[in-house]
């Protein structure tokens, strides 16, 4: 740190504490070589860095359904995933903006037995909204609710590695794993795992949690209202929070422009430039871990041929997709599912650019010239999927490949099209670890292996890397796995998409999480009104 940088930090903290005026700060910063604009934005950020309580935070979300409930086993979309992360619910651990796993309801956690056993110490004195005190039994009951034999919870898949969970006294919980997992605590950051209050062995699914906000009104599919929990061990900043479900993007934009809400997610990218110039608007733009892909079933002709898979990978102009489907708010994929900002990310060679001639010659090798394939798309897979498929068809024409785009109904897409039709569109939300990203859709026995890809070497490396605690060795193993997915896999990672929304400049925030939308789901207790 140079002397100027050091002094700048001091000046910034003086601003935050209200000890330095804008004029003095600017004079100092500009004298040090900063431009006026940069100095000004530094000042604003520093002045707002002090979180202060109060206000009614209203958000308009592109999610929500009349069948929503407060049973974490049924949570599946962006309106309810925050309920478990920091609204009514509180998990044991959370993800910080740098991607680290930090204690929340847990006070501390540590591995033993070569990461095969994990011991969590539970924070003492925490109460649920109904006044009941949190104990280790609540944690055990919650985990069993998800992994039990009758579980309906998608969370079951994330805790598949848990052999047993038991309480040791009132404040200690011990997880025994089936195999070593150096990243195990990350699994518990998932939105399905707020700690539930267990009464008579049964979980309370009414929204009674230990989180920073108390449920205060619930109209499924329309509106959810929360009030600050005065007894929370880590209270939120806002007095009240209202989530509105506004599924239609134009209506969402209008609600934001008219000042009915302070934040909207899933901003309409077609009009984002126009929205940007609206007064009092900050574009929420976080390049996240989420990606859009086009999985090919590797056991179905013609995708069972390696040359066909590779030819298609070369025949698509991914940059064009980023430009037209994401309007530049994203990055082209290179068939590794791990975003470049994540730990253990690796960019395999050769980078898949747009090369129709190469695609043509690969097809010739396989004796599959004039390939004709169907591609199933629906906006349920990701926004703009149908347009994306049309663009892909146009790109592939140059390689002599005819892609017949089929627009599937949104209704039932995941059930009838995805992993059923040989080639479809899909999206994968961010997972906090490389292991989770690779396991969830590429492990041979994964429930959601959407390419039915069963590469022996990949599946041999996966548990080894998970158990390894030496970072250098892990890096090498993850690089080899990503190379395998890139060369041989059927998951065509088209693009990594940013999380794009809009927030009022009245709202202030610190560094943003990249693992998921809405600041990782933590915006409700981390953000504040400046």
């Amino acid at each position: 740190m140079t002397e100027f940088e050091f002094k700048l930090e001091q000046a910034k903290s003086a601003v935050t504490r209200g000890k330095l005026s804008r004029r003095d700060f600017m004079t100092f910063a500009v004298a040090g070589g900063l431009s006026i604009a940069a100095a000004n934005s530094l000042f604003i950020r520093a002045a707002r860095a002090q979180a202060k309580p109060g206000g009614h935070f209203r958000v308009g979300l592109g999610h929500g359904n009349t069948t929503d409930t407060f049973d974490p086993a049924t949570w599946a979309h962006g309106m309810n995933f925050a309920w478990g992360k920091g609204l009514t619910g509180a998990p044991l651990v959370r993800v910080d903006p740098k991607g680290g796993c930090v204690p929340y309801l847990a006070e501390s956690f540590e591995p033993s037995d070569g990461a095969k056993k994990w011991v969590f110490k539970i924070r003492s004195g925490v109460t649920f909204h109904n006044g009941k005190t949190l104990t280790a039994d609540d944690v055990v009951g919650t985990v069993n609710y998800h992994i039990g034999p009758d579980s309906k919870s998608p969370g079951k898949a994330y805790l598949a590695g848990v052999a047993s969970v038991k309480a040791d006294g009132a404040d200690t919980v011990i997880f025994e794993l089936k195999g070593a997992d150096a990243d195990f605590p990350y699994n518990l950051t998932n939105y399905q795992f707020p700690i539930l209050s267990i009464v008579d062995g049964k979980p309370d699914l009414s929204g009674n949690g230990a989180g920073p906000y108390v449920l205060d009104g619930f109209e499924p599919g329309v509106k959810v209202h929360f009030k600050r929990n005065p007894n929370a061990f880590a209270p939120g900043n806002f007095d009240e929070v209202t989530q509105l479900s506004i599924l239609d993007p134009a209506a969402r934009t209008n609600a934001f422009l008219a000042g009915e809400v302070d934040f909207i997610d899933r901003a309409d990218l077609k009009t984002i430039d126009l929205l940007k110039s609206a007064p009092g608007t900050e574009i929420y733009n976080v390049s996240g871990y989420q990606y859009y892909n086009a999985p090919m079933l590797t056991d179905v002709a013609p995708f069972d041929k390696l040359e066909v898979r590779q030819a298609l990978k070369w025949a698509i102009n991914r940059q064009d997709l980023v430009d037209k489907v994401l309007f530049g708010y994203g990055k082209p994929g290179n068939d590794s599912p791990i975003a470049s900002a994540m730990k253990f990310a690796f960019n395999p060679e050769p980078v898949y650019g747009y090369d129709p001639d190469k695609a043509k010659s690969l097809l010739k090798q396989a004796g599959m010239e004039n390939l004709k394939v169907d591609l199933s798309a629906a906006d349920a897979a990701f926004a703009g999927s149908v347009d994306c498929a049309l663009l892909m068809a146009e790109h592939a024409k140059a390689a002599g490949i005819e892609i017949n785009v089929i627009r599937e109904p949104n209704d039932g897409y995941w059930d009838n099209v995805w992993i059923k039709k040989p080639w479809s569109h899909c999206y994968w939300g961010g997972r906090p670890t490389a292991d989770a990203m690779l396991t969830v859709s590429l492990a041979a026995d994964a429930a959601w292996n959407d390419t039915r890809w069963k590469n022996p070497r990949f599946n041999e490396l996966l548990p080894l890397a998970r158990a390894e605690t030496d970072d250098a060795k892990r890096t090498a193993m993850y690089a080899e796995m990503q190379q395998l997915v890139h060369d041989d896999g059927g998951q065509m990672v088209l693009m990594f998409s940013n999380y794009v929304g809009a927030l009022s400049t009245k709202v202030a925030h610190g560094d943003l999480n990249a693992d998921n939308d809405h600041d990782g789901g933590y915006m409700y207790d981390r953000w504040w009104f400046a």
Partner: protein
Amino acid sequence: MTTEHVDIRAIRSRRTFGQNAWRLLKSAPFTAKFGMAVIAFYIFCAIFAPVITPYGEAEIAGKAYQLSSWDHWFGTDQIGRDTLSRVIYGARNTIGIAFLTVCISFAIGGVLGIYASVTRGVLDQILSRIVDVLMSIPVLIFALMLLTMFGKSIWSLIFILAVLDSTRVFRLARNTALSVAVQDFVEAARLRGEKLPWIVLREIVPNILPPLIAEFGLRFCFVFLTISALSFLGVGIQPPTADWGSMVAESKTLITFGRPQPLIPAAAIALLTVAVNFVVDWFLHKTSGLRDEK
């Protein structure tokens, strides 16, 4: 004398169909003429779409969302296709789909409705009850369910909309035909020993035609709107087929910022609806027997 003879014959000779049509057209009010001109223009666009469009229907001709320029008069859409070309192709697809749908629904609903009203009895009762049931289910939601069930090809869209629409046609055809079928001249024809087809074609159909044609005009326009609503709710026409309803739905968010793109296909729908209904109004007026004083 010969010349005079010829003159008398000339006077007596009936006007040809063409001459009649021309006279009728000349007497049409301005609104009807305007309507016919618009319809003729749309039909021209529909037929010659491939010839008059500067770009192909699915051709990606430039960058996304360009404003209007010499290369793209109406700008480009969300993936860079030429809006003008899409609107012209849209005429072909939209009118084609709507026309087919309405024809099928009139074929089903009209024939069954007239048949039910003439024969009455059990068949009439059964059909009427079925129609009651179908009509009491909201069209849009029913169509959504059926489309999810039977797939999303253009043909299933046409048939599903046609069947759902035919219930309304059945109602109308049956009720108007019923009021005609009890009149004296039909009774007379029956007593004269005319066969059923003759009675239907010569006595009933001509008398119920005006309301049916009016309905045809309205239904025709409603098909676009239904398709556009379906498209809004996520099940529309298979891409890359251009259709006005889906085009409005696709570019809807631009309205928020006062951008004109969605106006173009919406205006195309509105203009055609107004034109069709102007012509229908004139036709109704002609057949109503009302001699207006003005």
